């Protein structure tokens, strides 16, 4: 297989996968339509990840590491819906929503987690280690921030190719401590590569709180070190993230180089499925539960008359059905044959 030169752009299904139409008349209000898409993707990520973490993992159907984005879904989804289909996405391990936005369905995600052939990597890798070059979504490796130089290089290539596409790179607060983070952003900044950098500052890296990770107050404080703009947004407000990402994308697409967005949020879960997060001061759970991005969005939608309670319930029900169906599908997907083991290490004739 040669490197992918011309990219097949996925059909972006604006209402997601089989999400029901709303009863409210499809108004001209683009904000309402956007809200609906937000709501769909946020809820879908929440539901799929709940299923993974709280059900399939506990049932022993998923064996490897499980990291979810509970409580911080608005970041990937807010920024991801700014990205054009031809933009290149570099998700981190809590950005499942980005896959859905790129037209990858829950079926492939469940199969991925269960190590089946129907998974995006066919069982070769697990959990969020998945990607699809044709859909311009690049699989992370485990090493935190390793995707930053890679995203910088992709952005440099897009610029070289004269494309108006840009790259979106997602990472956590902890990842910013790594040398790769620094090297990658510095290179991209010098090259004025079209790169949108999105930090989910969920205040923890595994058990390590922010103050043991960095001595500056904000990740955004680091923008100045690279001569790039940086801003802070409420990462639980999907509209705020969306708007910041628009500013960033505009900046990058205009040839002005990288742009850093720090999204303040909270990881509403332990680090991974086996971690109860006991080191988190108890009161924080409640405080942040009240700021839940889905609740926040739902409130706004109801307030503004963009949806009724019934609409939202029907959406949730549809997502549950879709998720049920996808789990079934994935469980029926076979395990790869052992003969796959030694295949595709190198190009095959």
């Amino acid at each position: 297989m040669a490197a992918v030169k011309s990219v097949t752009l996925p059909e972006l299904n604006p209402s997601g996968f089989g999400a029901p139409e709303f009863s409210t008349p499809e108004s001209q209000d683009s904000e309402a339509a956007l809200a609906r898409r937000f709501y769909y993707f946020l809820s879908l990520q929440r539901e799929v990840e709940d299923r993974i973490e709280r059900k399939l993992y506990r049932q022993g159907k998923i064996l490897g590491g499980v990291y979810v984005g509970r409580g911080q879904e608005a970041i990937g989804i807010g920024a991801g819906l700014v990205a054009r289909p031809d933009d290149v996405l570099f998700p981190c391990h809590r950005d499942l929503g980005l896959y859905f936005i790129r037209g990858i369905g829950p079926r492939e995600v469940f199969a991925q987690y269960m190590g089946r052939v129907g998974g995006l990597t066919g069982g070769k890798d697990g959990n969020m280690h998945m990607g699809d070059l044709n859909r311009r979504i690049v699989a992370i490796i485990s090493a935190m921030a390793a995707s930053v130089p890679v995203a910088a290089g992709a952005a440099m290539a897009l610029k070289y190719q004269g494309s108006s596409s840009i790259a979106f790179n997602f990472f956590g607060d902890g990842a910013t401590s790594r040398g790769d983070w620094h090297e990658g952003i510095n290179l991209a900044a010098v090259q004025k590569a079209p790169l949108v950098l999105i930090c989910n500052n969920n205040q923890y890296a595994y058990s390590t709180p922010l103050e043991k990770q960095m001595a500056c107050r904000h990740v955004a404080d680091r923008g100045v070190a690279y001569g790039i703009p940086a801003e802070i947004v409420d990462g639980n407000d999907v509209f705020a993230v969306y708007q910041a990402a628009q500013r960033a994308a505009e900046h990058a697409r205009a040839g002005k180089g990288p742009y850093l967005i720090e999204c303040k949020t909270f990881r509403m879960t332990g680090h991974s499925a086996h971690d109860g997060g006991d080191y988190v001061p108890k009161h924080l759970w409640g405080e942040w539960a009240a700021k839940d991005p889905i609740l926040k969005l739902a409130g706004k939608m109801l307030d503004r008359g963009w949806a009724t309670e019934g609409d939202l319930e029907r959406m949730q029900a549809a997502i549950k059905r879709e998720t049920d169906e996808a789990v079934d599908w994935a469980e029926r997907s076979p395990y790869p044959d052992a003969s796959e083991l030694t295949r595709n290490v190198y190009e095959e004739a």
Partner: protein
Amino acid sequence: MPATTYLEAIRQGIWEEMERDPNVFLLGEDIGIYGGAFKVTQGMLERFGDKRVVDTPIAESAIVGAAIGASFMGLRPVAEMQFADFITCGFDQIVNFAAKSRYRWNAPAPIVVRAPSGGGIHGGPYHSQNPEAWFVHTPGLKVITPATAYDAKGLIKAAIRDNDPVIFFEHKALYRRVKEDLPEGEYTVPIGKARVHREGRDMSIITYGAMVHVAAEAAAQMEKEGVSTEVIDLRTLLPLDEETILASVRKTSKVIVLHEATITGGIGGEIAARITEKAFEWLDGPVVRIAAPDTPVPYSPPLEEAFLPNTATVVERARRLAAY
């Protein structure tokens, strides 16, 4: 006293050294309040305080580098890589700073880098690797790969006391699966000495880490088939205990070298080459290498099972070698 797990043995070893020598201190990610991703350092923050149990940012190069710098000041740092797979992020500090320091300017860097390695836990490509061969090819380092709880404890203590940089690979699949009664008193296990895990006359399996247990199972089965099989547990890969290896080869004349790391460029080649160089006349057949195939470690269970060398494979190759 209940039997002690491999994991607990390492924990005890570190604990005792922390008690013994105030220069010993720990650094790594999530080793404090969380007690480490695998809980090897559990309770140490409470006992020794956050000056000696330092939670670091996610920065393996800084962790190793800081360990080196602290060792220059007379401390005895024990650095944890959360997974051995991330040791690549601190690679330059290990192979270029620590390994060469004594030789270049007579400044020993007595650090220990602990690295939980190995597959069999469904960790996929980045939580399963066995990167020991890279370090075995780096003069100035010592490389340790215990297979038993006894050795794990004795070797971590020896590593901490050693005056050279040591990479200490802890096999994750052994953490809770392997246990034994440990002696009451204090002991260390010498670095650089292999161990006869099981005696035999007709064939030798030379191995280390998790594969020692696979080899032992295979040996038990071969015994039933009338082939008395010796299992050598190397324990230390650098320096390699050539003497023990060659003694076994001279006794049995048939050798299998077994490791979990991928085959090409793995340490099996080194061992096989030394054996043929130094005991060619004693060999009654080629030195057989058994190791993982040359692929990343796959995630899906059937793929990972096919990847990891297992008892059946070893028995099958042993039979062929016996018949040679």
